[in-house]
């Protein structure tokens, strides 16, 4: 697939001296959904803001569809729609006007039919003459999405689109995102919620403290970094783990009926064979056993804490 956004050695130091981005390198492919995951203050919004022209980079470069975001800003910005993190809307404007304003701002001729359809897709058509201040938070979020899509962008940035959004709307939002992806729109979204990345993204990038720790295809990431756990169900409950099994760092739960063994799928020796042998040799009788893959959430926490441990 063609690269649509190329980020090279991008750094940003704010006037306050804070280094919000540290030598970021990232290539985003045309038509993919990429999720940027990271804790508060990681630099996600800063990264998006640089690409959209709201924050000037300190060093490094960004190219969108082969154009430089600073030198050829007209070409690059015309391709991009941005849904900001904050619900920033002018209170007294109507839904209809604000979408048409956005479209014009990006240099597109008015197109009533397109805006109408967009409002219908966002379930906002019946609110089209309502003043923005009278809308609920979720509706405002949808208006912001509408504004970002009003000029038919090829790239859509969603900065924490699901903050303050209920389950129903979240589902709607993902449907919109998938439909957009089907029309070839590249989508970059940020989130704190791992489930979201897991649910919607093709690739996941993890940012922490201004550094891009890794970018991986979602499934590969889960396989590569994933830890598995082996859960052993016992026929008879025990009140302590036999000494012969002390080497395996097992945890006992479920009132003594469950033993859990965590292992790293990446290592050659998972220790499962020897564990099973040791169990055979012990007095324990197994009723059932199963393995579970760790979620992105576990991976994420692992990554961040191992990085902190290195410091």
């Amino acid at each position: 697939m063609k690269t649509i956004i190329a980020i090279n050695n991008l750094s940003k130091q704010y006037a306050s001296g804070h280094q919000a981005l540290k030598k970021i390198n990232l290539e985003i492919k045309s038509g993919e959904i990429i999720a940027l995951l990271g804790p508060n203050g990681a630099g996600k919004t800063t990264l998006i803001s640089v690409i959209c022209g709201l924050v000037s980079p300190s060093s490094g470069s960004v190219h969108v569809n082969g154009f430089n975001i600073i030198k050829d800003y007209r070409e690059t910005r015309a391709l991009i729609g941005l849904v900001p993190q904050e619900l920033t809307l002018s209170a007294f404007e109507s839904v209809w006007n604000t979408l048409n304003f956005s479209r014009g701002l990006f240099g597109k001729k008015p197109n009533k039919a397109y805006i109408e359809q967009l409002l219908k897709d966002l379930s906002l058509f019946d609110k089209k003459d309502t003043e923005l201040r009278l809308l609920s938070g979720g509706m405002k979020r949808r208006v912001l999405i509408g504004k970002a899509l009003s000029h038919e962008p090829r790239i859509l940035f969603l900065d924490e689109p699901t903050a303050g959004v209920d389950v129903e709307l979240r589902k709607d939002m993902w449907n919109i995102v998938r439909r957009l992806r089907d029309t070839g729109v590249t989508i970059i979204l940020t989130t704190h919620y791992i489930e979201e990345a897991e649910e919607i993204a093709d690739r996941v990038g993890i940012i922490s403290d201004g550094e891009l720790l890794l970018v991986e295809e979602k499934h590969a990431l889960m396989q590569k970094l994933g830890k598995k756990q082996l859960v052993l169900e016992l026929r008879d409950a025990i009140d302590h783990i036999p000494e012969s099994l002390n080497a395996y760092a097992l945890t006992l739960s479920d009132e003594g009926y469950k033993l859990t063994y965590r292992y790293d799928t990446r290592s050659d020796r998972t220790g499962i064979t020897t564990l099973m042998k040791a169990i055979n040799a012990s007095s324990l009788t197994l009723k059932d056993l199963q393995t579970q893959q760790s979620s992105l959430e576990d991976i994420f926490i692992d990554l961040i804490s191992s990085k902190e441990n290195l410091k």
Partner: protein
Amino acid sequence: MNIQAVKVIYKYEMLRTWKTLFQSIASPVLSTSLYFIVFGSAIGSRIESIEGVPYGSFIVPGLIMLSLLTQSIANASFGIFFPKFTGTIYEVMSAPLSHYEILLGYVGAAASKSFIIGIIILATAGFFVDLDIKHPFWMMFFLILTCITFSLFGFIIGLWATNFDKLQLIPLLVITPLVFLGGSFYSISMLPPFWQTVTLLNPVVYLISGFRWSFFEVADVSIWTSLVIILGFLAFCLALVAWMFKTGYRLQN
């Protein structure tokens, strides 16, 4: 050039004006009428004509300038400050348009609005006094130039201001005194010689003098001096705004 963008900024700024049409127009009309009643009729009837112009007519150009300056600055500064304050400016800043196109949209709209107000005040004044404009072309020229220049100045204030107090600061502490002391209500030849010299440091004097000349051919300073000073101030504002844009001042982190 992104003409669509300039058009929508202009259009929606003007739309904002129409929505508050009543305040936008009623308040300058009302205050001008009050000035006429107090200065023109009540006090003016006791004041002789100045350089052959009846006092009521004499104050018309100054009154128009008073409203024009305050309105231009207020509209333009608010027009850009408000989206900055609410955060909606992000959209304009991320759109494919240059700073100068943003300027054209916002300042164009503010200047248009002041121009309309200027014309309305002129018409209101026509109710109270006889107006015989000697140089209509110059009158229009000064009117438009003032609207543009001070809207640009307002835009700069709006960019600079980080809170509502700062937004009010310059209009209140600088512009209003300068206009009142700039010969709106008197000819500076009526002042003692020392104060005449001091007054000449006030740029608004040149503005009012030039504008008044286009009405009555009565002026405190030569019309060319007036013209140079206004154009100079315009050039200063343009340079200032160019510097702000170049450095991304208060617009970009």
